[in-house]
């Protein structure tokens, strides 16, 4: 039993160090991963859905492709469409029934405001709030914005309004302990998934 007690003790110390590093060094980086100061200040149409009390993340990634080539992958976002281009195997651990399309599907290329987009099978959903072909796509206040630099370089900027700060202790513990880091993993995975697909020849 002494060995088991020792193992638990070191496991707790290990996770305490992880938590400390995460809060001091990692969280400040992932809240605006890849985004410049100007991109964080940019105004998007769906910002009107974001109340001042919400914790907002703005992340960005450089894609060596035109906005026209990136757009089709964003247009078919959704569990009930072409997936989220993220770590589907991780989503499916939670029985999300996620399948990422590896090709552009014509029938999903015309998203319009009011379309219902599912996050997982039988789970939460969101309506498309704003769409402008080759420029932006928003699910509620969650915006995907394509900033076209030239014909071969585009910045994909993603803004996500998550939780209202004024919440119960339990909700805050859930948000800071699980939702926020997991959302970063999935959202950054999604942005890299879009990059990979758009850059593929």
């Amino acid at each position, binding site marked *: 039993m002494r060995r088991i007690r020792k*193992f638990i003790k070191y*496991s707790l110390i290990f996770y305490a160090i992880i*938590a400390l590093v995460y809060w001091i060094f990692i969280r400040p*980086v992932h809240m605006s991963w*890849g985004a410049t100061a100007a991109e964080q200040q940019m105004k998007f149409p769906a910002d009107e859905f974001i109340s001042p009390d919400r914790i907002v993340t703005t992340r960005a990634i450089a894609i060596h492709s035109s906005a026209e080539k990136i757009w089709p992958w964003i247009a078919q976002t959704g569990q009930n469409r072409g997936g989220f281009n993220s770590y589907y195997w*991780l989503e499916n*651990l939670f029985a999300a029934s996620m399948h990422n399309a590896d090709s552009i599907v014509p029938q999903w290329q015309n998203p319009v405001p009011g379309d219902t987009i599912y996050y997982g099978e039988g789970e939460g959903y969101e309506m498309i709030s704003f769409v402008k072909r080759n420029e932006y796509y928003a699910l509620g206040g969650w915006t995907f914005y394509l900033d076209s630099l030239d014909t071969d370089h585009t910045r994909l900027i993603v803004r996500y309004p998550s939780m209202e700060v004024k919440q119960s202790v339990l909700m805050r513990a859930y948000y800071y302990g699980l939702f926020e880091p997991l959302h970063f*993993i999935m959202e*950054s995975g999604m942005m*890299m998934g879009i990059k990979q697909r758009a850059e593929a020849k």
Partner: protein
Amino acid sequence: MKNTVISNKTAAYNGALIAVAGVFAYSFAVMLYTIIRTSVSICSIMPSPERSKILWASGFSVAYSVGVFSFLMAMVSSMAGAVAGVILRRVLLWLNPDVHLSKSILISSIVSLVLLLLLYLVLYILLKERITLQYAGTFLFWYVFPAVIFFIAVLIGGAVFSNSLMKEKTNKTPKD
């Protein structure tokens, strides 16, 4: 029963400790698997100057969320472990008073299987169609691997308890 070294309280405490250790052991396996798989994906997409930043951020975010989740699961599992510990102690003392290790292992296995059956029956009543074989990964992750760990933990618990009883028996023999 009252004269044994391991009391109900100690059995519950040891059961809880073994359960918590099982949760942390599983969490390390899950953490490693997730970090390796996400890192392979990141390395194949991101160019080198930006790669290291996202590797660190993603890796620590995985480790942190797994840590938080395993901490919550450890609290729940410690209660299940404590109950299992007390049940195992009572069954072992009842069916194996002479303390034979092979018999202890057999009894521990049966106790473990019965407890798992009860636990999964409760889960089935609570979750019903959400327990699905549709995704092998989901089923393995949430049900099969934890069941294997629980089974091993009960076997360890049974062995620890039998060893203590044997020691007690050996210590008492000269006096008797």
